[in-house]
């Protein structure tokens, strides 16, 4: 049983990290809330499904187009919705959450519900690790998830745009005075984040069906990981993913799957009470000390 817990805990943690990367890039690192994140994830899934099944494009072409469409949708949301309320945090949250609700509920209204909405796996079969079978799709998730997490770290620490992402979150006015176009960077951040949500969807959704309700769960999980890890910290995101990932698997094994989702919410509550800046968060650390 412990072998299962270790292997599946690791996989679950990488899935969580992968799910949260885009949200972390936009909200955690750039300070721009995108509470339509879960909707972007589902949007990518349905677009890919439509291209694959209605236009009969090859899966990888449909996946790439879906990722591009989702990034464009994110940029459009920034340009036409977020830009108008920029700087008003509560309004930003409400506006993006509203956009997310519209997207998700529109899919529901249009009848996108049923077992036929499923994406194919990248490769079929499974691998025996010790005494535990792991399907190849999970191995893909782990591989791409680790690569993306490392890539995101280097992107935000060693590239001009990545540094600009962090810059506008640290102090937008100073960033402006240094020649960073904060509106453009924030827009890019939302587009990148949405694109990452789409990548996560293309990798993770073949394990299940594309369901509107998953959009809400993805948002809760991504929020939990970012809040617990600490806003602005890529390493924190990974650390939090592993804490929640293993906690969820242990809960599943010891208590039953119906308690899994509660773990994320309890973790958010505990961290907000004990250390509001998160495990490795820097953005509010000073306020916390005062």
């Amino acid at each position, binding site marked *: *049983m412990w072998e299962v817990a270790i292997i*599946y805990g690791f996989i679950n943690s990488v899935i969580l990290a992968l799910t949260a990367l885009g949200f972390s890039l936009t909200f955690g690192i750039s300070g721009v809330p995108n509470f339509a994140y879960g909707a972007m994830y589902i949007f990518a899934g349905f677009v890919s499904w439509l291209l694959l099944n209605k236009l009969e494009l090859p899966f990888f072409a449909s996946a790439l187009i879906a990722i591009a469409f989702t990034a464009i949708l994110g940029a459009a949301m920034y340009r036409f919705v977020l830009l108008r309320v920029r700087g008003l945090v509560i309004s930003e949250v409400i506006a993006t959450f509203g956009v997310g609700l519209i997207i998700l509920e529109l899919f529901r209204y249009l009848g996108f*519900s049923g*077992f*036929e909405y499923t994406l194919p796996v990248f490769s079929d079969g499974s691998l025996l690790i010790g005494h535990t079978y792991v399907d190849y799709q999970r191995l893909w998730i782990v591989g791409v998830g680790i690569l993306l997490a490392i890539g995101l770290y280097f992107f935000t620490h060693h590239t001009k745009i990545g540094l600009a992402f962090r810059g506008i979150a640290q102090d937008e006015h100073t960033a402006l005075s240094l020649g960073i176009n904060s509106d453009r960077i924030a827009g890019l951040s939302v587009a990148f984040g949405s694109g990452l949500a789409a990548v996560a969807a293309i990798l993770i959704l073949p394990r299940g*069906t594309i369901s509107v309700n*998953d959009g809400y769960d993805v948002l809760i999980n991504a929020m939990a990981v970012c809040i617990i890890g600490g806003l602005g910290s890529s390493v924190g995101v990974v650390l939090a993913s592993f804490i929640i990932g293993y906690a969820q698997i242990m809960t*599943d094994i010891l208590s039953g*799957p*119906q308690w899994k989702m509660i773990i994320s919410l309890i973790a958010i509550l505990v961290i907000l009470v004990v250390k509001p800046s998160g495990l490795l968060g820097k953005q509010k650390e000073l306020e916390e000390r005062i």
Partner: protein
Amino acid sequence: MKKIFLTANLIIGLLVVLFMGLSYAEDPILIGVPTAETSLEGRESIKAVQMAVDEINAKGGVNVGKEKRLLKVLVSDLRDSSAGVPVSEALLGLEKIITEKKVNAILVGPFRSESLLAGMDIIAKYKVPLLETIAMSPKFEEKVKEDPVKYRHCFRVCLNAQSLVGYLAQSLGFLKEEFGFNKMYVMTQDVLWAKATGGGVSKVATTKMGYELVGSETYPTGASDFSAGLMKARIKNAQVILPVFDMPQSGILLKQWKSQKIPSLLCGFISPMAGPAAWKIFEGKLGGLLNSNFELGSAIPVRKYPPATKFYEDYQTKFRVPMEAGHGPAPSYDAVYILAEAIERAGSLDPDKIADEIKKTDRVGVIGKIKFNDGNQVIYGADPKETAAGCVYQWTEDGKRVIVFPKSIAEGKIVLPEWISPSKK
């Protein structure tokens, strides 16, 4: 003069025809179909109702006393199959279609038993005959039996969880007899009927058949990762896993079962696996699964019972797609005929008279011989010539569905997948 006379006659004739048409259009019998429109079972049940209504209307409609009246279907979405939709919302929808649309009867009805049980009081309040065809909790009959006068308008045509327990328990008995299996693991969705079914089957199997329950799991609606549960079943050496799910995501359980090569036979109900499309959607990873179709005709042709096969084929001809829901469409189709015949026997649209006549139903339907018990539930059994019936079938490795239970309509025997070994040789 002759021309004027002819023209006047023509105009009068046209007016008479128009008037007759209008009188038909103004007075159809309104059939309310409030259900979860986004669910597969709901969608296909609505289509089955429409199919029966079209057939009846094509023959001129229903005799109400001396009048012939057409049927008209009014659909409303209760959304109660979706996670997080409160029962109160479904009840509002149910009450709305009764009070605003003034329907004469309700068919199909709520998707969730939780909504049905609460909705029965609304039905009792407005006295509108209900023929439920999806929600399955046995508590429905308990409620009717507790107060048969109050709930005299509530009927259920689909299988109830109790009968499903019977089918599955007998299948488990057969597995024990044939292969020597005696350890079971239960995986159910966290909804009333599924938990009742899972609990009921394990109770019968452990107390009467010598099975050992080695574990059980309950999954929230919408869950799509079953790997930890499957691993637990493997570690505890379960030989049979009993899944009971009606959510679209549950199809993934099969993929995970097959890719992890879990050495336990799946025998239960996984709703997305009911219809023929499952084979393509789930990439052919279904071979070996024992699944139930709750009513004959619902997404499965039955070679030994022609009315079910005819319904299955007619549906495909009419809608140009095969039926996929293993629960709902067939009893929904039959429900229209039950209602139409009850109205004709009652000779009026008086709900009390209709309810009394529904209770007396004795007809050969798509689901088998239809009669109601004292809990206003259609009686299900093992032979469609005697009672209504469901069936258990097995997906073969080459994508066919072979009925294995009940014996009266069985088309083949259970075959174990190559990675599962029998306990007795």
